[in-house]
């Protein structure tokens, strides 16, 4: 072992979801996605566009929480009105969270229970419907379990492959759920029926662990590899990008 923690492995797995994106706006929602996106920009995807989380595009990929002006050089202005322009144009890859996600990648962040009088009101639709129908979307789920990976979501905020299929190839031509990364493994939808498939399990996690913590039937290939472990240089870069160890708080060992 190279001294990589589970948080490091998750961050790099998230970064890998952005591999190949090139000159795209990447919108990572949350700590681990932010770390992963910055790692990707600093290592293998230097052309990614990243924001400061408010309204500036940053020329660099600074450490999380940095307030050092030298590290926060703006290269553009991206207020919310321009975010919508960008995302409706398709030049964006978002990584969102999900309170619930199903086998086809339908996501729920709106509420639990009957939407007329929810048991638990969550965030709301936010941008999920527009994101998922307009450009690539990935998900980061730090708490993989059967209450998150559910047979049916209570509300479809982010559109999954069954719903996209009903719309037809033309209407859904920009729909893509690229990757789901959880604290247990990496998943995609590269199957004939577009059901969720195990791509890899993190070191120390068995396929049975993943299956047992998932509330629907995953597609499990005959051989499931381990998620790649970052090397010493990559771990050093992760530590530079996360000096306060925020990632480890979200993904404990």
């Amino acid at each position: 072992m190279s001294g990589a923690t589970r948080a490091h492995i998750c961050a790099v797995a998230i970064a890998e979801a952005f591999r190949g994106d090139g000159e795209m706006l990447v919108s990572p929602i949350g700590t681990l996605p932010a770390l992963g996106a910055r790692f990707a920009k600093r290592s293998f995807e230097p052309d990614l566009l990243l924001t400061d989380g408010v309204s500036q595009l940053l020329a660099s990929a600074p450490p999380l929480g940095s307030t050092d002006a030298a590290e926060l050089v703006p290269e553009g202005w991206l207020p919310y009105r321009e975010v919508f322009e960008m995302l409706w144009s398709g030049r964006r890859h978002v990584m969102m969270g999900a309170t619930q996600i199903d086998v086809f990648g339908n996501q729920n962040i709106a509420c639990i229970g009957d939407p007329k009088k929810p048991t638990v009101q969550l965030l709301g639709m936010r941008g999920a419907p527009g994101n998922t129908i307009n450009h690539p979307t990935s998900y980061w789920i730090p708490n993989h379990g059967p209450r998150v990976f559910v047979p049916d979501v209570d509300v479809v905020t982010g559109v999954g492959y069954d719903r996209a299929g009903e719309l037809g190839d033309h209407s859904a031509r920009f729909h893509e759920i690229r990757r789901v990364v959880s604290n247990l493994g990496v998943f995609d939808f590269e199957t004939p029926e577009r059901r969720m498939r195990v791509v890899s399990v993190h070191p120390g996690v068995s396929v049975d662990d993943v299956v047992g913590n998932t509330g629907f039937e995953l597609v499990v290939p005959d051989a499931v590899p381990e998620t790649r472990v970052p090397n010493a240089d990559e771990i050093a870069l992760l530590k530079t990008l996360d000096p306060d160890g925020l990632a480890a708080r979200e993904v404990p060992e």
Partner: protein
Amino acid sequence: MDKRTTLSEVVSELRDGMTIGIGGWGSRRKPMALVREILRSDLEDLTLVSYGGPDVGLLCAAGKVRKVVFGFVSLDSIPLEPHFRKARQTGRVDAVEYDEGMFQWGLRAAAHRVPFLPTRAGLGSDVLKLNPELRTVRSPYADGEELVAMPALELDAALIHMNRADQHGNGQFLGPDPYFDNLYCMAAKRRFMTCEKIIDTADFAKSGSIHTLLINRLMVDGVVETPGGAHFTECPPDYGRDEAFQKEYAQAVKPELWEAFRQRYLELDSEADYQRVVAER
């Protein structure tokens, strides 16, 4: 034209059952002095149209709201707005929930005086199921693509808060994001702007570039100077969010704490009293 007025005069123009758009975003640059003035009034049965924050939460907690049109309601540093959640979970308010992008499209449709604008956003999601009155429209061109016909979000009144304004109703934002405040104004029949400071028109150029003059006077019917008027939401560069106060507000969702919070901060005669009590904490 001198459009200066007062908070109470603005609120006296509002009526029960009106649809009111509130500018800002989440817990950012919200016209909170006007929200507090509504709390002091007898208004009820309101429909709020908002990228929601504590504006929505406070008005829901005070029983002023019948319906909320929203894409989210959040306090930013506290992701879920507790008072809004309570109102939803007890079924006290109706919800009309859109994707965030659809929401600005609806404001834009109203601003353009067209009944709808087409968009791909919403297709395949439960936005259409939860809003059964929503319709799709087919492209009349060769592609024949089906799109969501986002209806105009017409407002009876718009309330916004700017950093600077002049007495004529021109408004200047000095923070990082204009949000959609100009669209709210253009979508509304009556438009009211509070600001941190009313300055001479000639002084706009001293405080910011020409690009910061988001609101022009044909968008505004009344302007009120309310220093601290966005409190406890952020209003940079004048001030950041009052996180301690926001936390107190969020905790006051507990019934045993709400009454004390209400009496201390909301059962006051005026915005000036509120600002004094907040300063003296």
